[in-house]
């Protein structure tokens, strides 16, 4: 460690009456990874936005290598060597441009790369892509890339800046194990080169693997700093939450009569057929790496994709939905992954977002009944524990965890036969994750529940049974009791290889 690259002194920031940062003092040493933990609303995002020039601090100061640093814009922060990879992926890429242009975007913007042929652009971009192990077609528009690759593009773009401080805001939340390992390798290299790294994550695995120091934030102040090895992650968690979290206690249930029965299901041509039975009252987690086929399974069950073969039955009757509307009609609900893109109506308040799928329940003929809507909104906010002023709050004012509670609550408003949740904990802080998980188990009795997650920890937190998926088929099954999570993880990785 070579001393503090960044020194933050007495930083404050308020939005109206809401004091988000209340005097932050923090050093970020060069050549070290500082992990920043905090529940949603603790002020992490605001701190990052002050550092990367989106917001200006109200008080205090930041020193970058001893000189005052107060960027007026993200571009200025970038020039000073402070680079940020944001949590919301599309903030870091231009979806309509191709990969090569995205990678070179900042250099095109500052004029150091002029107008060039597509081939020359691609040639200039190739090393940047290779540095992060990005294998995508450099000529393809970023819009068409899978989430994981879009994230890599954003990271690769950040790497092109030879950063002095690299801020990574939940970078692994949408990466597969292999991609995450590649990223960790990069982080190790940067650390060795003397870059200061600020790493924001909820994932214990990441933290254990990477952290040189852990900083816990709570209510706009630094609640704890842990530098001694071995790192006291439990202490950090305590400092962040202000209380003990306790382990989730879970007694696996056997389940009642079968709801969903898949026989010889082939998710895509060439994949091995598999059987799957989901029973009433049972919560099944399907885990596997990104690309293992979990998304396809969700699509098949919800009518957006067709299986290549096999037989699906719901409560004994043939089930082959042609559209989401048909699936919903049969009592199969899906909480889709990537809530910003697939679930939230950003212009709307909490209440309207909650009633979206079952609007006819709140209408007499075509006419809406606002009282019925509000009643449901209040009930779901209460049941899901959404932290807000009221159901009229805009959905955009909520933290990621609370947004996810709304998205899940929307589908819990009506009884169903099968509830499928695709990566429901993506970008959700640990407290909100526990809340959602608990609510899912409380309500699980009258239906079958299928949770698709890439994190084995998350699967173990919620499921009665854990299925491991790889190559678009199910390769293993475990009852969730005294499970060796490391072994499950290896299973998933090996089957994929």
């Amino acid at each position: 460690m070579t001393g503090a690259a960044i020194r933050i002194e007495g930083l404050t920031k308020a939005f109206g009456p809401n004091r988000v940062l209340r005097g932050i003092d923090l050093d970020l040493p060069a050549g070290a990874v500082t992990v920043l933990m905090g529940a949603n609303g603790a002020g992490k995002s605001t701190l990052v936005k002050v550092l990367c020039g989106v917001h200006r601090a109200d008080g205090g100061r930041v020193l970058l290598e001893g000189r005052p640093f107060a960027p007026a814009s993200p571009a200025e922060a970038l020039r000073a060597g402070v680079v940020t990879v944001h949590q919301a992926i599309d903030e870091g890429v231009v979806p309509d441009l191709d990969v090569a242009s995205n990678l070179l975007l900042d250099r095109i913007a500052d004029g150091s790369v002029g107008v060039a042929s597509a081939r020359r652009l691609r040639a200039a971009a190739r090393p940047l892509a290779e540095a992060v192990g990005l294998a995508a077609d450099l000529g393809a528009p970023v819009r068409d890339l899978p989430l994981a690759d879009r994230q890599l593009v954003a990271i690769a773009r950040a790497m092109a800046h030879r950063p002095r401080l690299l801020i990574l805001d939940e970078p692994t939340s949408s990466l597969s194990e292999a991609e995450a390992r590649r990223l960790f390798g990069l982080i190790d290299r940067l650390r060795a080169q003397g870059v200061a790294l600020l790493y924001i994550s909820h994932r214990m695995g990441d933290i254990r693997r990477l952290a040189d120091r852990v900083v816990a934030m709570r209510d706009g102040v630094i609640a704890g700093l842990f530098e001694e090895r071995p790192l006291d992650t439990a202490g950090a968690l305590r400092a962040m939450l202000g209380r003990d979290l306790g382990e989730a206690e879970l007694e696996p249930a056997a389940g009642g009569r079968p709801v969903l029965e898949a026989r010889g299901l082939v998710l895509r041509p060439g994949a091995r057929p598999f059987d799957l039975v989901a029973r009433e009252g049972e919560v099944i987690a399907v885990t596997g790496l990104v690309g293992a086929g979990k998304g396809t399974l969700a699509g098949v069950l919800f009518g957006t994709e067709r299986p290549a073969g096999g037989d699906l039955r719901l409560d004994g009757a043939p089930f082959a939905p042609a559209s989401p509307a048909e699936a919903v009609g049969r009592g199969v609900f899906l909480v889709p992954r990537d809530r910003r893109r697939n679930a939230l109506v950003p212009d709307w308040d909490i209440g309207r977002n909650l009633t979206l799928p079952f609007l006819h329940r709140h209408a007499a003929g075509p006419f809406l009944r606002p009282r019925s809507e509000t009643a449901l909104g209040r009930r779901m906010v209460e049941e899901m524990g959404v932290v807000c002023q009221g159901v009229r709050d805009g959905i955009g004012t909520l933290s990621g965890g609370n947004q996810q509670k709304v998205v899940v609550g929307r589908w819990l408003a009506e009884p169903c036969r099968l509830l499928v949740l695709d990566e429901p904990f993506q970008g959700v802080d640990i407290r909100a994750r526990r809340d959602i998980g608990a609510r899912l188990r409380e309500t699980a009795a009258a239906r079958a529940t299928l949770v698709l997650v890439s994190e084995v920890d998350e699967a173990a937190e919620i499921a009665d049974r854990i299925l491991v998926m790889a190559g678009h088929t199910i390769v293993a099954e475990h009852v969730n009791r005294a499970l060796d999570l490391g072994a499950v993880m290896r299973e998933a990785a090996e089957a994929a290889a």
Partner: protein
Amino acid sequence: MTARDFAIRYGFLLLLLGMVGLFGWLQPGFLTVPSAVFILQSVAITGILALGVTCTLVVGGFDLSIGAVATSALMLAAYVMVVWEMGALAAVGLCLLMGAGVGLVNGLLIVKMRVPDLLATLGMMFVLIGLQRIPTEGNSIATGMALPGGGVAQGTFSPAFLALGRYRLWDVVPLSVVFLLLVAVLVWVFLELTRHGRLMYAIGSNAQAAALAGTNVGAYRIGAYVISGTLAALGGILLAARLGRGDVASGNNLLLDSVAAALIGFAVLGASRPNAFGTAVGALFVGILLQGLTMLNAPYYTQDFVKGAVLVVALVFTFALTGRGARARA
């Protein structure tokens, strides 16, 4: 409520009131019942078109063909009555059918053929501008005109049809104004109070989310264009009833004025989104401005200038003021 919130919510309505006061002070004839009725009449046609385009804006689309649909309906109504010598009912029915049909084709092009909305409706606009001239070889339609196939058109505009543009309830309120108010209320009720309207807003805000909530996104989008086409045809019928002849016109000014009204509507009550009430106020706003300025003898180019300035101010209200307020919280 901060001063800024107040400005966003009521700024535009206050501006409207202030303008009415100013014109009333400068021009004594302005604040009279006939003048008010007339303002409504002058915005009736663009207002109805604007309410239609509002529906397409709600689902995140756009309809550039409304002006051409309106003038095609104008020509069609004239053709039906003057050349085919049919009655008012047939003229109205065929025009509405034509409008709905054009809307359906627009919708199918956009939803099924995946043509971007601006391009599909632009193409339709050109098709219609040309098509409406083919039967008469580019001539306007009036009784006594020579027909391309020989002979002279003997039909006349039926009095019942002309009444649509000329009859006045209680000798004061023209029927076209009644239609405007009726359509405004219907569209408002549809968009704000029914679940169909709600789902259309969901589609406009996040179509993917709406689809994954089980909404038939394609059907609603097509429906929006059918509404837009039908209302544009209604506007064309009222235009025909007012003009009493089939005038050849592209309808581009109708399009621009109604789009301006719908966009100004974004700023009313700080809605920041297409909405029926705002559109109606926006149309009224433009109508009052033009009426007042004409009364004061302002030449036509200053009117265009003022219209444009109002639109820009409205867009600033919508995007700069409200947008920043929402973003500051993230």
